[in-house]
């Protein structure tokens, strides 16, 4: 086809301009790809954290009550919900820990270590000294390393737990964990120790639930509310959803901006090209090229620039992402985990971006191509 041939000639003969145009689009796409994959990576990391530390659904006492009574019945009900992978009951209360004249306030939580481990793996992955299971013996406590440091506590020391209306207890420190700051204020004791502390019977204050699909949390919370309990999903609890959504929005804005800029670039290049080629367009018309042939030559050129730029940008973006990932740059870390600078390139982007730049470039080329096709050959030949 003549149009293809002429367009190819223009592009290959004007190598510098072509490379410049392709480079500009490629740069825009590279930046966009990296931005998007960085945010994908962040979302992945946040999801991992949610997956590791945050219960997906938390069941709380019914309205007007401060405890969950008959909690075995509740647990049975929870386990009948499909997709539930863990249900950890807890009896939580505020408490003051004092040792050697220092006092810190904590959330004292009576838990079943085996069940808690299914929620946050604290006893499995995050212990730095001692263990979590030993709290089962009673009058034992496991607490965060930072809290232990504040109180100058070492493994084996006895700390005093007290609170107004509660029984003061002496607890032996048998476990110290470090989650990198996610649970500094939690101190874990056995369920029985917590009940002794509060003088309560067989009650709890919450059930933490894990699901195999974290995005079903809202639905599960709703079905528990139907049983009369208060139940919150991680989405409604943490504000994480809003932050992810606002990132998604700014992500889209960045894409839009970058793409518009590169489309303007293409339009500009095409306008210059048409101006520069006016006489030659006139000559092509004299040789019998129709308006549609002229239009197609420029549309093809714009399209090729966009497609090449988009493809190059994807390859470069993907390359940079893979390279940075291979460096494994740690942003933050604890004993059981690290957050790495992690680009997650969505494979769909690698297909979509060249297509988007192709379409946008063609769109940007429409007006200049139309101008070219509407030239009067007599005027054009005069230059």
């Amino acid at each position: 086809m003549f149009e293809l041939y002429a367009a190819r000639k223009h592009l290959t003969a004007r190598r510098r301009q072509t490379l410049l145009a392709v480079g500009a689009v490629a740069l825009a796409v590279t930046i966009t790809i990296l931005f998007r994959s960085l945010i994908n990576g962040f979302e992945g990391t946040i999801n991992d954290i949610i997956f590791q530390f945050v219960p997906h659904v938390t069941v709380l006492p019914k309205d007007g009550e401060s405890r969950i009574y008959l909690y075995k019945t509740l647990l049975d009900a929870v386990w009948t919900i499909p997709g539930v992978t863990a249900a950890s009951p807890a009896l939580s209360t505020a408490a003051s820990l004092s040792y050697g004249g220092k006092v810190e306030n904590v959330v004292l939580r009576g838990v079943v270590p085996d069940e808690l481990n299914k929620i946050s793996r604290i006893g499995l992955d995050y212990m730095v000294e001692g263990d979590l299971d030993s709290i089962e013996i009673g009058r034992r406590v496991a607490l965060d390393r930072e809290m232990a440091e504040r109180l100058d506590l070492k493994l084996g020391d006895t700390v005093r737990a007290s609170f107004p209306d509660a029984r003061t207890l002496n607890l032996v420190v048998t476990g110290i964990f470090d989650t990198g700051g996610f649970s500094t204020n939690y101190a874990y004791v056995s369920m029985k120790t917590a009940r002794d502390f509060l003088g309560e019977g067989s009650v709890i204050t919450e059930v933490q639930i894990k699901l195999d699909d974290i995005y079903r949390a809202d639905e599960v919370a709703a079905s528990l509310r139907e049983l009369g309990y208060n139940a919150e999903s991680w989405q409604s609890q943490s504000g994480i959803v809003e932050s992810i959504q606002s990132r998604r929005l700014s992500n889209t804005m960045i894409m839009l901006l970058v793409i518009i800029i590169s489309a303007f670039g293409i339009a500009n290049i095409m306008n210059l090209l048409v101006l520069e080629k006016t006489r030659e367009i006139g000559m092509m018309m004299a040789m019998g090229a129709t308006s549609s042939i002229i239009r197609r030559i420029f549309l093809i050129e714009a399209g090729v620039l966009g497609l090449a730029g988009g493809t190059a940008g994807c390859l470069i973006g993907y390359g940079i992402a893979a390279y940075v990932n291979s460096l494994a740059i740690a942003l933050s870390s604890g004993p059981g985990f690290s957050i790495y600078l992690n680009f997650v390139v969505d494979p769909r982007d690698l297909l979509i971006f060249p297509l988007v730049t192709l379409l946008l470039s063609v769109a940007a080329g429409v007006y200049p191509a139309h101008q070219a096709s509407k030239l009067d050959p007599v005027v054009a030949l005069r230059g």
Partner: protein
Amino acid sequence: MSKIIDIKKLRKVYGDGVELVALDDVDLTIEEGEVLSIVGPSGSGKSTLLNMIGLLDTPTSGEIWLKGQNITKATPAERARLRNKELGFIFQFHHLLPEFNAVENVMMPLLIAGVERKEARQRAIDLLEEVGLGDRLNNRPNQLSGGQNQRVAVARALAGHPSIVIGDEPTGNLDTKSSDMIYELLRKLNREMNQTFILVTHDMAMAEKTDRILRLVDGRIVCEMRREGDEFVSHDLCHLD
């Protein structure tokens, strides 16, 4: 000889406020195989007339017939097709495409016509050899002299086997030696291929080598001279200078 072009009362008026009559009811018949030259002062309407014949421009009134077909009101697509098939153009400036080498420039009308690349290429090479540029096939315009480029333009004008070749001051930018060479080339091609040539020129020496000279002043043909043997016979009152 048969009529290839028949122009009837052709009129072209420019301007919306002040009217400028570029062609004033011109009647003209051109025979197949004729070499015609048009002379006249600058601004007399020579280019305007050529652009009408070349289907690059449309008249204000009057008719143009090409090979017995009234093409005055042909659609843009039909005009483009006729330009490609029936016409070859040589302008004062060669208007070669700078990205394309000599062969590629000459191939262009053929590629537009949809002729296969290989065939077009062979035709272009033959023509470039014909115009004496057989050793410059792969040179781009910026690697050739003005005269050489104009010869490439001649080859390009002839590539599609047009029945009419139009030259608007085709040697206007060349020195005498190159001009003569171009003219001899056109004449030779005319003899070999019996194409019709319509040339606008300022060069009386060149005009006097053609079959017929038309003198245009203020958009009218004021004088027509026809060659009879070695002599020009004037049909009207002519003041050739």
